[in-house]
């Protein structure tokens, strides 16, 4: 596709410009706007609502960072990226951070020169099939036609899964989630595979979600998280600790409802350090004292964001599962604010 050539050229140009680039924190402040890469549209994670406003779980991270750095949760320019274009967009400096349910892998972290700042959703790759097909396990999918989003880790997991189980399949590579949905619903493929959260989100938008089932097999570990360019550690710290602030806030019981009251000062020193009424954590980060308070206020703490966008009350209906706090038997564990 011609796009990749242009993007490739843009990368080169971007890299050339990158040498002269100052810290991203300063760039964002000078611009007054955060350029945040998101999906082209995955309801619950990042999609424009009826008013054209971006909403979702990944979007909330972007807004929190914008609120922390710029003091305005709406000062975000959302840049839709596909599985194929996202890394080039980040490497070239077109976006400051990428919050696009991107799996943290060794080669992306080390070889592609990115910095994953944490995990905001612990996911795994699953399969969705029409109920009418009568399939109950992914191992019964011998000879099936499988729709996949190209340029993702799912493509590689899929090849490995079918190979190790010694069954055959026919891959249909597709650029975006919307196209995949169209092909899947038209019956051009039997199975749609991507991260289980993405499948749940996609299924929620179907006319008859009940006609489709997610197979029990989860064939991979997919820790999804926001990432930034390698080498700009100040910026990496800002994004990392904004995410940690959201997680810690839930653990410490700070919610968007009680945050104003709590920021005046509480008996818990860690809450005080987090919300800036004690200590100089914000200053160490190159921001002001209220950075974390604004970030949490933007959309609420991690639990609130989860419940609003993808939780069990929403059409997507995901349980917390692995994404519960460590105190509740999940994997969410923010380092201490000290």
């Amino acid at each position, binding site marked *: 596709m011609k796009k*990749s050539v242009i993007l490739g050229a843009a990368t080169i140009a971007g890299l050339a410009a990158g040498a002269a680039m100052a810290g991203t924190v300063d760039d964002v402040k000078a611009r007054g706007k955060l350029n945040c890469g998101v999906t082209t549209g995955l309801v619950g994670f990042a999609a424009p609502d009826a008013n054209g406003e971006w909403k979702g779980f990944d979007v909330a991270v972007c807004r929190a960072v914008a609120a922390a750095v710029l003091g305005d949760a709406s000062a975000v320019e959302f840049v839709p990226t596909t599985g194929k274009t996202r890394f080039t967009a980040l490497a070239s400096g077109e976006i400051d951070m990428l919050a696009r349910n991107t799996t943290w892998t060794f080669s992306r972290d080390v070889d592609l020169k990115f910095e994953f700042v944490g995990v905001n959703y612990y996911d795994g790759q699953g399969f969705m099939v029409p109920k009418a097909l009568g399939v109950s396990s992914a191992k019964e999918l011998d*000879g099936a036609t499988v729709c996949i989003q190209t*340029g993702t880790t799912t493509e590689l997991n899929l090849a490995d899964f079918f190979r190790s189980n010694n069954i055959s399949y026919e891959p249909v590579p597709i650029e975006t989630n919307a196209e995949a949905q169209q092909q899947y619903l038209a*019956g051009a493929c039997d199975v749609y595979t991507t991260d289980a959260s993405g499948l749940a989100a996609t299924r929620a938008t179907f006319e008859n979600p009940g006609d489709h089932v997610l197979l029990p097999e989860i064939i991979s570990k997919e820790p999804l998280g926001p990432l930034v360019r390698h080498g700009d550690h100040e910026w990496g710290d800002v994004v990392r600790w904004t995410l940690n602030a959201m997680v810690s806030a839930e653990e410490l019981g700070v919610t968007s409802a009680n945050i104003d009251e709590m920021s005046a000062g509480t008996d818990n020193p860690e809450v005080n350090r987090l919300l800036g009424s004690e200590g100089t954590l914000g200053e160490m980060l190159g921001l002001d004292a209220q950075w974390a308070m604004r970030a949490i206020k933007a959309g609420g703490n991690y639990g609130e964001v989860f419940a609003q966008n993808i939780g069990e009350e929403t059409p997507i209906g995901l349980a917390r599962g692995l994404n519960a706090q460590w105190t509740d038997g999940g994997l969410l564990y923010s380092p201490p604010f000290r």
Partner: protein
Amino acid sequence: MTTLTDPPKEQFRLSMLLYDTRYRSATIQVIALFGFMLLAAWIISNTIQNLEALGKPVEFGFFGEPASYDINQRLLEYSSRDSHLRAAFIGLLNTLVVAVLGCITATIVGVFVGVLRLSNNWLIARIMTVYVEMFRNVPVLLWIVLAMAILIEGLPAPNAFRGENPTATMDLFNSVAVTNRGVYIPEFLFTRSLGDIHFFGASSIRFDVSLDLLAFLIVLGGSIFAMRKVSANAAAKQEATGDRPTIWYIQLGILFVPMIVLMTALGLHLGYPELKGFNFKGGTHMRNSLIALWLALSLYTAAFIAEIVRAGILAISKGQTEAASALGLRSGRTMRLVILPQALRVIIPPMISNYLNLTKNSSLAIAVGYMDITGTLGGITMNQTGRELECVLLLMLVYLAISLSISGVMNWYNNSVKLVER
């Protein structure tokens, strides 16, 4: 007394480079060339330096690594354990398949439409005009996407062929299945196959050649050679005696008998597609992505070719047609024997660029998930390895090589139909 003296020999001075009109343009050109080279060198060194600063020096070692992804359409065997280079090679073949199929179809459709647009039949001429304007004026990407959407939404899924009362049935005596995953047609199978010969051992460009196909081609070539001999014999006899012997049954015999003998010896039979499990099995599977891309590219390019053909025909003066009819040639023969050979000289050069365009446009394949070289090397490989610069450079090199080969062949053909002036 007059003395003739040579005019004083002008000394070359440095300032003349700027003030003497004889040298000035050369000076400017040299300076501009230097400037350009400096700019190019700056861009290249900057890129290399920055990539090194990023810890991503330019190197091609990743081509030997396993690709780890699968490709649905492949002419040669390939598995996810093969190298990135092999994947790129499979992609290259896919590009060539769609380019060759597209160029052939576009030429046939284009010539037809171009000639018909000049038809005296008002309706036919207008329909052709509408076709040309519609296809020429809409971006080819939209045609590709539209073709794919029609194939996916318009055709039945394999599921519809199942059960007691299927909503869809196979065509042509149960031999062809048209589904929204592609068209399954019967394939040729041999019970006593001669096998394959393998080339290039285990390297990335290894391929097999079917000995059955080779035998078929040899027999076909032999038959055609014999037919020519018979035909030349008949012509010689006609020259000598004025009587042309009837040879059509001999010709037919020469063409078909050896072929039938060969096919029976090899045990030819057809393998029919059959609904098994999730999909049709057996037969040849022409995927939707290939059909959509092929159709859209050829119909789009055919619209341009039609205009070129029309221009070529109109470039031949009316006197030629009139002279031909004065000789008693009918209109069909006038077109074939008088007009087209002359028109070809005008048609070929712009035709080359259309073939090149079609080939390059085939890089839009990813829009429908057709795994051409842009999809493998410039898509998944680039994405999974993060080697943008290397992949894009190589990709450009590949397209350059394909395009130069096409124009090389076409220029050779152009020279052979050129007017030979004495």
